[in-house]
Each structure stands twice: as C-alpha cells, then as structure tokens.
C-alpha cells in the first residue's frame, strides 16, 4: 500500500485521467479489493468482476473524492456495495444452502490462527448466503444491524437473527471438525 502522501499524489493523477496512474492505483489496491469481494461472493472470478466494477466506479467518480479524506474506507464502501449488487443481480440471496456432509471434507489445522483464505472461504460457504453476508457486514466490515437492514432490505431484527445463526453455524463447524478447541 502506498503511504498517504504518495496516495494523494496518485489520486490527483488519476483525477487527470492518467491511465498509467490508474493502473498503478489498481495494482496497489488489487489485493484489498479482491479480499473484500471474495468474502461476499465466495469465488475469485466473481470477486474479480465485482472488484473491477468497483475500480471503474472509482475512476469515474474520483473527481468528486476529496484527497484529504481516507481513501480506503471510501473504497471499501464501494466494494461492499458493488459486491451486494452483484449478489442481487445473480439472485443468490434466494439460495438457502444448508449445512451438508461436505463439511466433513473440510480439512483444517487445529487453530483459528492457522486458517488460510481457502479454509475460511470453505467454512463460509457452509453458511446460508444471508448469514454469510450479514456476518461479513457486521463482524468484518463494521456495519450496524440498522444499516444492514437498510442495505439488504430486511428488518433489523432479521439481521440479528442471521448473525446469531451464522455464529452458531461457524461454532458448530469449527467444533465438529476439531479445528477449534475450547
């Protein structure tokens, strides 16, 4: 990641439409963007598409961005919203993935801190789509239940329920497969 000063300069260059600087910004925030999108979308291909769409939105509206503000939170919101849009377009919220025997196939180390990206994604995939989204929004990205309710067009109470179930499911998954010991 670039330091703050160089990021300000980079954004200023991007505002001028300099394609090389845009490419530089892209490559510097590629991992950051892909990480957020893949958490919501579950696979790299969809995540890349959503990340690229987010970058395009940023490039198009970067003139309205104040360089004195922190870029990452702003960019994160774009990424999260774009990922949610992508999920809605794909109508994946309608899916209700139940915990299945595939859980048995998950191989993990015995400690949470040894979970790698693939392990986490595999775990998350065992969750219901809505549970996973709410978990990501609340626990990882810091949105409130009120905000989540507004974003997902569900009651605030439903958001809490989905989160509780997500946590319970994760606990169950971790316990069952001995990847976590109390």
């Amino acid at each position, binding site marked *: 990641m670039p330091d703050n000063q160089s990021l300000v300069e980079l954004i200023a260059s991007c505002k001028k439409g300099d394609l090389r600087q845009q490419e530089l910004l892209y490559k510097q925030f590629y*991992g950051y963007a892909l990480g957020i999108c893949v958490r919501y979308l579950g696979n790299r291909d969809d995540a890349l598409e959503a990340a690229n769409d987010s970058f395009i939105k940023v490039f198009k509206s970067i003139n309205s961005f104040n360089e004195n*503000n*922190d870029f990452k*939170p702003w960019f994160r919101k774009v990424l999260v919203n774009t990922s949610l849009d992508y999920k809605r377009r794909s109508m994946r919220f309608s899916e209700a993935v139940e915990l299945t025997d595939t859980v048995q196939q998950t191989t993990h180390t015995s400690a949470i*801190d040894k979970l790698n990206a693939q392990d986490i994604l595999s775990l998350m995939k065992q969750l219901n789509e809505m549970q996973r989204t709410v978990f990501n929004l609340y626990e990882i990205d810091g949105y409130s239940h009120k*905000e989540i309710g507004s974003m997902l067009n569900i009651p605030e109470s439903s958001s809490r329920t989905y989160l509780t179930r997500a946590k319970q499911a994760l606990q169950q998954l971790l316990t069952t497969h001995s990847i976590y010991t109390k």
Partner: protein
Amino acid sequence: MKKSEEDLVQQIKSVFDDYNDGLSDQGWNELRKKFPEKESKKLPIWWLSGIAATLLVVAGLYFYNGSGNEKVILRANNTQKDSSSQKGKADDFKVETDIANAAKPTNTIENNEKVAPTESKDFRNAVQDVNNGLKVLTTEKLIAIQPKPVIASKDKTETLGNGITQGQLKTSTIIDENTIIASAQTNTDQGVKKPIDNNATALEKDAKSNTETKNTKLTTEEFLTEQSKILAANDNTKDIQKNSSSKTTFDVFTGTFFNYHDNNEAKLSAGVGLNANVKVTKNVVLSFGAGISQNKVSYENSVPTEISQAMFASKDNALNSAPVSGMAYSATATNDVSFNGRLLSVDLPMVVKFFPSKKQDFYISTGINSSTYLSQKYTYNYSWSNFGYRNGEAQTQQQTDESSLKGFDFANSAIIAIGINQNLGKNVLIFEPYYRPALSTMGDKNLRISSAGLNLKFNFNGNSKK
C-alpha cells in the same frame, strides 16, 4: 463476543485484508476491456444521421439533374389539297421523313398509328388529360384562338391541330395528318430490493459527505443514509419506468422527404404527425398513427435543340414543297409539356418496430402506409407552336384539375425505416431515415409515388432506450 469469535474475525480480517493472488496484471487487462468506455456510442447516431442527410442530398441532386435524357418524336405532315383535282389525300406531302430521321433513335411512329409505347399506365392516365385538353383545344378552341393558316386553299381550309388526338406524350405521339408533332420523353431479486446500481452517483455524494473523521462507523451511517435515499428514489423511478414501459407511448414527428414518380424530377415535401407505440413483446413495438403530408410530383419534357431546328426545317420544306402558292399549309408542334401534382394527404402508417439490441438504442421498422386526401391539385402546362402563326412562336396553355376530401388508398406504400434513439432526459429524440416504395397508386390520377426522407420524432416518456 466470545474469544473464539473474536479470533475468527481477526483471522478473517488479516487473511483478506490483502488477498493478492498475484494476478493483478490479468485483472487490469480484464478491466481495460470495459474501461475507459469508448466514446463512440453516440457517434453512430450522428454518423448515421449525417449519412442519411448526405444520401438525401445526393438523391435529390441526382433526381434534380437526371431529367436530361430526352426522347423526341417529331412528325410532320403538310397537306396540300388541290381543290380542282380533289386529289386531297393522295397528294398529301409528307414532311415527316426528314424530321423523323432527325428524331432517331427515338420511337418512330407511323402515320395514323395509335401508339401506346412502354410508359407506365399511371402516368398514361395522368397525361391522358393533357391529350384530351389538346384535343379540345385543337378541334374547337384553337381555331378561335389562332388565326387561320397563312395559306389557305380555295375550297377547303384545313384547320390546325386536328391530329392532336391520340398518343402518349411521354413517348411523344400526337399523330394525324396536317400536323407536326413533337414531344419529348425524358425522362431481479426475490424478496430483496433491487440493486444499488447507482453507486457512482452515490460515490459523488459520499465523497462530499466523507468527513475528516476516521470513524468508519459514523461515515458508514452517513453513507447508508444517503444510500437509502437514493435507493428509495431509484426504486420509485424504476417503478415508474416499469409502469410506463408497459403503456403506450406517443411521439410526434416531422419529416422532410423527396417524392419521386417514375423517372421524374424528385420534389422536396414535408409532413407532421402523431404516432402511438404499443409494446407487443420485449423487442417488438407496434406503431400506428396519423400525419399530414404534402406530396408533390413533377414531370417535365422539353424539346431538344436539334428537334426544334428540325421542326423549323420542316416548315421550310413544307413551304418549298407546296406546288403552287396559295396551297393550304399547316404545321403544329407540341413543345414543352409539364405536369405537377400536389396532394395534401392524411397518412395512416402502421409499422412494426423491432429492437435488435438489448439497449434498444435503435430499431428497424417495416409496415404499410395508407392515405386519404384532403386536397388534390394537378396542373398541366404545355406549349405548342403553330408554324402558320407568328412563325411558330410557342403558345402556352395550362389546365388544372382539383378535388378535395376524396379518395382512400389502402397500403399504397411500404415503409422501411431505421430509427436511432437519442435520450433527451426522460424523452427520446428519434432520427428515422426511411424509404417508402410505392405499392400501389395515389390520388385521382393514380400516381405511383415513392419517397425517401428523414423523420425527426420526439417520443414522450420514451422507454425505447433503456
């Protein structure tokens, strides 16, 4: 939150904070397929409009200048009648030979033949009146109008123009004895709100509202408040669009076009009207309406110089050939003939529009047009020369036929058009170059009029471009 949960969350954050798979180059290449957007999207509209306009100009010039090929048939008979011998016809002297030769390679018409050459039936009808008019004039009025021939016979003076009774002007035929005749032929989501599609818009607002604070939660709230408002507005807009897209839309149009009739000069005309568009399927729209347009057609023939010269030569020949002075001499020539038709019609187009592309930014339409007529006016102008009067100075004559609120021609023309949509706010401006070939005839005179032009349509509540 339990410690285990905290640990899990922390692990997720740290793993996905920089999920760089080393394929950023590939990712950038993917992005470059969509960004920056080529700004050529609007270009085709202007290009096509330009092309359409250019074609119209070229076609106009072509038709304007294309009426130079003239065919003329000239025929002359000079009859001298010897009153004493009563030989009359037997002594007819034909001047036509030389003149007819001069008129080659056009049709050669034998004396007393009724010739109906290859011209179109509709025009024949239209021109028939000219002939009739000539006939009337020659047999009745001309004598009154024109002085008697210079040379008169003792027993019988031949009147002028008896022969202008038959034939087709287009192929230059007016035949009889005692006449010189010339004319010319020219001639998504279940239970979930619709997507937040306008992040770009939100970004702008968000960027402005992005405060100095680093408190992500607060910023997020602000963002979401904005987002909620936008979502609400967005959903309302989409509802409206959905509703309106299922309804009939209307457009008003104005158009300029060229009429042409057979090979005749094209005339610039204009029209205005109102259309209703009814969505049949996602990509198919049925459009019908009514418009008022003025259709003009024109036909004009003139005698080439060499034929004029031949006519005058024939006169000299006729005089020289007269056996004795005082013999009857008459010679006439029809020189220039023009016909103008002006029809003020109510057009009733019915077309099917097909939108091939997802964006529905253009369409192809085809259909039929029917017409009824508010007024029709046909004017015939012609000039003729009598070589026995003022040395053949041309005399002009005009005849006009008019009618109003008369006639209905169903499916008199086909409509083939391409519409190019240009959004103007909620409405749509449509450039529609079109071609309307004649399927049948129009008006009292059965004119077969085709047209090509450009319609400029303004669609209210347009949803043709999504």
